[in-house]
Each structure stands twice: as C-alpha cells, then as structure tokens.
C-alpha cells in the first residue's frame, strides 16, 4: 500500500530543490532558515539589550516591539509583509525577500527575550566588579556580561532555532518553494499525500532532532570551558 517509488522518483526535486534550494525555483528550506536564524539572532541582541536600557525612549519601544510580535501569529505577520513591502518599496519583491524579512523581524522579538533573560541571569556582582575595575558600561557588557550570558542562553537559543527552522515551512503559504511546497507540487502530480508528507516530516525531524541532540551535548559541557 505504501508506495515509496514516489519518493525515489522525486527525491532530487524534494531534497535538492525543496530542501537545499538549488534548481530552477528560487527556494529552499536551508537557504531561508540559515540567514533567518543568523539575522534574527543579531537583531534579537539589539532588541534584548534595548529592553534592558535605562533610558525609557529606548526601552519602551523595545517592550512594545516584543509584546506586539509575541501576541500575533506568524502567519498574520507573513501576510502583513507580503502586502506592505511592495506598497512601501513601490515594486514587487520576490517571495524570498518577503519571507526572510518577516522571519527576521518576527523572530527577533523571541530572540530578544532570550537575550534579556540571559543578561539578567548574570549575577549583579559581575557588573559591579567590572565597573570597579574601570571598564566602561559598554566594555563591561562586551567583555564580561555577554560572554557569560551567551553561555546561559545556549539551551533556549537552540530551542528557538528549532522553532524558527520549523516555522520556515510557513513561507510556502506565499508561494516560496521550500521543502513543504516542493512536496505539495509533487503531490499535485502524483496524488500520494500520505507518503510525501510523511517523508518530509521525517526530513524535518532528522534536522530538528539532531539540533536538539547537539544542544543537549553543549549543555552537559562544563560551564568553565
């Protein structure tokens, strides 16, 4: 009953085009996920630190940014960008640009919360000691707080990366050809939904599960490393 032939015949399209993004479509799960994770985290550091700022004009917008994006579904945010970016730029942007912008801005709110919690987990005495040694506020943050905070953040960071990796499947809603869309395209021709969707579930699972295994290994490493 299970027809694995459909997977074998379309393996190249599903993996090379859909997963890696090499082929006639400008797509690919990895090609979207990797820059989204890197840029989302970079923007998340800015947002997280802004939330901890003493000046209200920096802190309040950051709080609003985080609370807004954490209160709205990602699907909604993707539709917003799909509609608003062409309006603002006055020209259409490819799905890749729209999806990447939406993911970076949406996930930065979540990464920001992780950065904030990480910075707050560093004992207050560390800041005071760094300042007493004569480091400026920025230098204390750069050389003393952030290195320790990053180590505390690792487990929640990896969890968020896994969430983001899974969320990239939602880019298929606006027509971006990632792994999920590739499976839909093949299914339209072959009509083997059970095999195809189970197959891509396994592909996603292999990626996310190995990420979470890696995280567990990192957690076990002594913190003085």
């Amino acid at each position: 009953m299970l027809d694995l032939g459909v997977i074998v015949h379309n393996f190249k399209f599903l993996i090379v085009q859909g997963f890696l993004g090499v082929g006639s479509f400008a797509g690919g799960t990895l090609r979207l996920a990797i820059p989204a994770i890197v840029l989302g985290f970079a923007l998340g550091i800015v947002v997280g630190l802004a939330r901890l700022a003493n000046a209200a004009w920096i802190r309040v917008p950051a709080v609003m940014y985080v609370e807004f994006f954490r209160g709205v579904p990602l699907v909604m945010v993707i539709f917003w960008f799909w509609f608003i970016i062409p309006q603002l730029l006055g020209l259409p942007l490819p799905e890749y640009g729209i999806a990447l912008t939406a993911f970076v801005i949406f996930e930065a709110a979540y990464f920001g919360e992780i950065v904030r919690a990480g910075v707050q987990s560093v004992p207050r005495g560390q800041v005071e000691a760094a300042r007493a040694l004569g480091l400026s506020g920025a230098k204390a943050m750069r050389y003393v707080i952030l290195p320790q905070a990053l180590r505390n953040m690792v487990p929640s960071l990896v969890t968020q990366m896994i969430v983001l990796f899974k969320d990239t499947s939602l880019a298929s809603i606006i027509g971006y050809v990632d792994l999920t869309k590739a499976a839909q395209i093949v299914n339209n021709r072959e009509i083997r939904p059970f095999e195809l969707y189970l197959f891509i579930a396994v592909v996603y699972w292999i990626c996310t599960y190995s990420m979470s295994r890696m995280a567990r290994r990192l957690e076990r490493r002594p913190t003085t490393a």
Partner: protein
Amino acid sequence: MSYQFKWSVLWSGQSGHWLLQGLITTLELSALAWVLAVALGILSGALRTVPFKPLRAAAVFYVEFFRNVPLLVWMFFWYFGVPPLLPRGVQDWLFDHGAEFWAGMLALGVYHGARMSEVIRSGILAIPRTQFEASVAMGLSVWQAYRLVIVPIALRLIVPPITNESLNLLKNSSVALTISVAELTFQTRQIETYTARAFEALTAGTLIYLVLCVSIAWVMSSLERRYAIPGLIARVGGPG
C-alpha cells in the same frame, strides 16, 4: 505610499459577520485542540514513567517525533494524507461533516500535546524532592503532604509555562487556514479578497489576536502574582 484608507469596509457588507465567525471558529478550534493537547500531554508524560519499556518508548517517540516536525506538515498530513486510507464510507461522512475542521483540530492537538508533555514534565521535575521529605518529616501524612504542599507548589510552577504554551496554540491555530478552516486569519484574507482592502482587513485581524493574547496573558500573570509564594518562586519575565 499612495494608499487610500477606507476603514468602513470592516463594518459594511459581510465583513463584520465574517470576522465574528472567524473569531468563533478560532476559539472553538483552539479550545478543542487544547483539551486534546493537555490530555495527550498528561497521558504521554505518565507513560514515560511506567515500568514497561515498549510503552515508555512509544511515549518518547510520540513526543520527540511530533513536536519536531512543522505544524503545517501535520496539517497537510492529517487533512490530505490520512483520509484516503480510511474506508470509503467514513471518508464521505467526514467530508460531509467539516473534515478540515477535525483534521485541523487533530493536527493542532496532537502537535501541541507533544509540546505540552515536555512543559508539564519539566514543571513537575522542578519541584524539589526535599519539599515532600520536609512535609513528611513535619508529621504530615502522604495525602496531606500532596494536598497542602506538593500540589499548591506544582500548580504555581506549571501554570505560567502552560499559559505560554496555550497562547502558542491559540496563535498556531492560524496555520489551519492552509487547509481552509474558516478561522480568523482565513476570514481576514477573505475580507481582503472581497474588498481589496488588505491594510484594513489585516489590521482588524491583528488587533483581535493581539487583544486576545494580551488579555489572556495579563489575567494569567495577575493570577500568578496574586498567588505567588514570597521568596519561593522568582518571577521571571513579563506577561506573555
């Protein structure tokens, strides 16, 4: 940007009715999926402690497989993949009785059940064993120790992460639009299609989600503050 705003599209014609219908469907879908998720979460959590290896392995497989695959893939799997395997009569009956709603509910509930299982488990693991030992040493019976010490502490530890996860479930119910469940995001898109007023429609949908999530988070975090035990549980982070 040369966009002409016309907010009246939200209350003229059928828009208001569609938004309300969408909100009701979102709430129904989320509520049913939530019940399923909590039941599966508790069941799989309990099975992971049973002294019988195949059951433990099944529970671990469920949690690790279902929470690590995108919800969208599960939506397609339950809606397109599973029904063709059922007998013809069952299929016909399902498609006459809102198959997309039930497939969406199942996808959402089974996916979040696996996530809920982890949330509940880490909540229970966070209760210090010494709490129980101290209560027994003070002369409480096991029943009293549970009723007066363990359960009150466990509830306080578990409610914040469960609230968080429940809000995730509510927001994730929007993914059901991909299998054409007429929930809030779907209706927002429908208004956009009928009126060609994307900005107004998206604003309305976004505001409804925002009000829903922020108010639930606010109620839960004020409950949390109200019942906090001073000095025992440090409150981390804001609402949401």
